[in-house]
């Protein structure tokens, strides 16, 4: 079951290497950002988040970098494993009357053995 279309950008990485997945966000007023992982046929799974008052946040094997100047977000996965194979997408939150989210379409990560 494809989760988001057949023509996603794909990143192929050798097992054990580091992966970097990028996301350009659209709204300069966005103040909160989330990375999700979505395996085939499953729901999106929260990985890590970052607020706009931060540039970097680290989790277990993952790091998110935020560059507000160019509206760019990246997800770094250290020592990529076969279980990391999935679609990764970012979400940005802004306020317009109420909280609103914009979700990206994602990047497919393929881990090569």
């Amino acid at each position, binding site marked *: 079951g494809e989760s988001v279309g057949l023509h996603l950008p794909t990143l192929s990485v050798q097992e054990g290497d580091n992966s970097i997945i990028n996301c350009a966000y659209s709204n300069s007023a966005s103040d909160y950002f989330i990375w999700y992982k979505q395996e085939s046929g499953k729901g999106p799974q929260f990985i890590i988040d970052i607020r706009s008052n931060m540039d970097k946040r680290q989790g277990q094997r993952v790091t998110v970098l935020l560059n507000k100047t160019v509206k760019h977000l990246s997800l770094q996965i250290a020592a990529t494993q076969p279980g990391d194979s999935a679609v990764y997408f970012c979400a940005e939150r802004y306020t317009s009357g109420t*909280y609103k989210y914009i979700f990206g379409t994602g990047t497919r990560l393929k881990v090569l053995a």
Partner: protein
Amino acid sequence: DAGITQSPRHKVTETGTPVTLRCHQTENHRYMYWYRQDPGHGLRLIHYSYGVKDTDKGEVSDGYSVSRSKTEDFLLTLESATSSQTSVYFCAISVKKGETQYFGPGTRLLVL
């Protein structure tokens, strides 16, 4: 899937029939959301709820209605299904308004 179940997980229906999808959470969270996911699009918000009997429209609400009579259940109804509503539907919950959303496993709906 953060204590969220969706039913049914798969459904095939015919154009013009009503369809109801159910989202059930065991987290007792106040905030619940319905999204659809389609090729070439990010998740798009259909409706959301900030509590029992407190619901509002999202960006793609036409043809959909929702109900929330209990904290744990959020129902999405397609009043008269159309082929354009063929999609994967996800329910999400959050602890606080606007904060991190956690998603259910999804319902794959095919409207013939």
